[in-house]
């Protein structure tokens, strides 16, 4: 190598181009074409949604971003995403607040605390739970969780209603609120966050932990000083993957939430909506223009999830570069 690069006059040893034979060229073309097809699909999603959305928004008679109601079938049509955006963000935030600490706890349990005989069946169980379809969570949420959370709702209303957030306007109304949706979403994304976090915890160099132990650290100190700092960016990106899932979840929200175009800080009131829930609920009765309007709201959801997932992936990619760990 050195000789070639210093002598200069010689061209570098020309490697046979990979695709000289017909079979090779065909195969390379096919596989590269598939990769490009994926890019085309992603671009097409953005383009087609944007085209239909612009059509709908241009005919919207009220401000698309600040209107509460969704009346696309009115003449003139009037619809907006204020309530949907608020509901999507709030329910996902509640889900994150509950799910992230618990997921980190479970991942720690599996990797550092559980007896070894329990750890691998547990990891397996979490894998299986990640595969439970969201409609099953939705059915369980709507028929089982909602009545069973009524007690918690009343308790929150009794003791914490001074916060405003946990004030329930009508204590007798069912617990079909954004708060319940948040709890259900948390249950759904715990397996996802746990899976990724667990993998990150596994990659913590054993030497770091042993060094801490050798200095007399307790197990918690080992976790706090060597495991968590190493895994921080992994936990962040795992959480964002979970967030992406929670933002786009349709069925679990559609079955639990009793939707209405009210924007309130009272999380226990059975009002509100999310992007995906609104699309599922309004689709059946939508005419051609109504479908375009729903596509417009879907575009907003797409952009939000794109940003969240892209950020998560960038964090993972950066981490991979300096740690050499594969995710």
């Amino acid at each position, binding site marked *: 190598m050195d000789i070639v690069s210093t002598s200069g006059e010689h061209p570098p040893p020309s490697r046979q181009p990979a695709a000289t034979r017909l079979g090779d060229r065909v195969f390379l073309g096919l*596989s590269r074409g598939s*990769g490009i097809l994926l890019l085309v699909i992603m671009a097409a999603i953005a383009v087609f949604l944007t085209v239909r959305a612009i059509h709908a928004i241009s005919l919207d008679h009220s401000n698309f971003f600040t209107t509460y109601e969704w009346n696309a079938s009115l003449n003139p049509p009037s619809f907006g995403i204020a309530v949907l955006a608020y509901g999507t963000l709030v329910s996902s935030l509640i889900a994150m607040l509950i799910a992230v600490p618990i997921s980190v706890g479970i991942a720690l349990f599996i990797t550092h605390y559980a007896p070894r005989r329990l750890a691998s069946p547990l990891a397996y169980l979490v894998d299986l739970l990640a*595969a439970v*379809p969201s409609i099953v969570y939705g059915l369980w949420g709507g028929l089982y969780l909602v009545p069973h959370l009524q007690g918690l709702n009343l308790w929150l209303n009794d003791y914490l209603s001074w916060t405003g957030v946990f004030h329930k306007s009508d204590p007798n109304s069912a617990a079909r609120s954004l708060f319940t949706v948040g709890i259900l979403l948390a249950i759904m994304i715990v397996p996802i966050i746990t899976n990724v976090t667990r993998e990150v915890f596994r990659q913590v160099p054993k030497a770091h932990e042993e060094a801490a132990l050798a200095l007399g650290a*307790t197990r918690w100190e080992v976790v706090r000083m060597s495991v968590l700092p190493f895994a921080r960016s992994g936990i962040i990106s795992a959480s964002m993957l979970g967030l992406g899932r929670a933002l*786009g979840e349709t069925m679990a929200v559609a079955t639990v939430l009793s939707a209405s175009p009210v924007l309130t800080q009272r999380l226990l009131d059975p009002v509100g909506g999310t992007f995906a829930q609104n699309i599922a609920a309004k689709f059946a009765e939508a005419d051609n223009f109504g479908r375009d309007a729903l596509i417009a709201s879907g575009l907003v959801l797409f952009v939000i999830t794109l940003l969240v997932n892209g950020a998560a992936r960038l964090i993972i990619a950066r981490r991979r570069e300096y740690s050499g760990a594969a995710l």
Partner: protein
Amino acid sequence: MGHEMSETLTQDALPASSLSPLAHRRIPRWAPAGIAVAAIALGCGVGAAAGLASHLQWGLISLLLFVGLTYGITAGVEGRRQARDRVATSLVWACFVVAVVPLYSLLQTTISKGVKVLDGNFLTHSMGGVITTQPGGGVYHAVIGTLEQVGLASLIAVPVGLLTAIYLVEYGRGKLAKVVTFFVDVMTGVPSIVAGLFILAFWIIILGFGYSGFAGALALAILMMPVVVRSTEEMLKLVPNELREASLALGVPKWRTILKVVLPTSIGGILTGVMLAVARIAGETAPVLLLVFGNQLINNNPFSGAQSSLPYYVYEQYTNGNDASFDRAWAAALVLIAFVMILNLVARGIARWKAPKTGR
């Protein structure tokens, strides 16, 4: 409970722990269990005395008492650091319990309510001619729909996914590969309803095709592709380079090397990934809701006319909102879970059976 490691350090390493000035005082081995029993007894006592109806609240009170007592007692005997360690241990265990409770409840409820109407009749009949408020009817049409839609989606997504993964691992150098990798990752996060809306805009609104199982399959394929790519990629990376080099050194063209050496070596893992992807899309409801539209009757043709599917059927019966429909919804949910779980178990079985030989 959970103090083996620190014990190894302080006690087992120094057998004469009671005499050594290096060893700390420790609470006896039975103490955590004792505290747990005391906390549960106290928690139940307080709960019963205050007349709290929910046993969940009893549990929470017990948990708080346990953590508090553990901290207090350990801090007194062993010092602050040990106390914190024990509290952290109990919190991690608590996380585990807190997570298991709803998941157990989910499975238990689905199974106990699902078996009520689940029988041969339920599996072999459609909803044709059944009044929704009456018992009867079944999921046959939905099972047909799910199988056809998922099958079509796999036919589209698996080749594209496989080839993309091959490109990324075997050929991918430079910018294009990086961009594809990034967008495959991002694509994994596309919400299913957005994929449905895209096919709606593209296939149904602009190209003017009607609702059909195939339209749903297109959306499912979009959701499935990135999953197949990711898992196949991981598996192809596990194939040792020596195998490729040996084959290339014998003058075998690269494409034949891939087809005859690389793929057979990793076929187990690839199959596993494909089946997990199938399991994932089999439970998707939102695209079916938008594109297949639902049907009470049997429609064997996925290319024309509305169909049903298992997840859609669950949703439809749920929205009917009466007890007979709820029963059917639970039974269909049970069928769906069983389907997904069997796919998962088979996939993992294949993975174990045909684990790639990494040469080590």
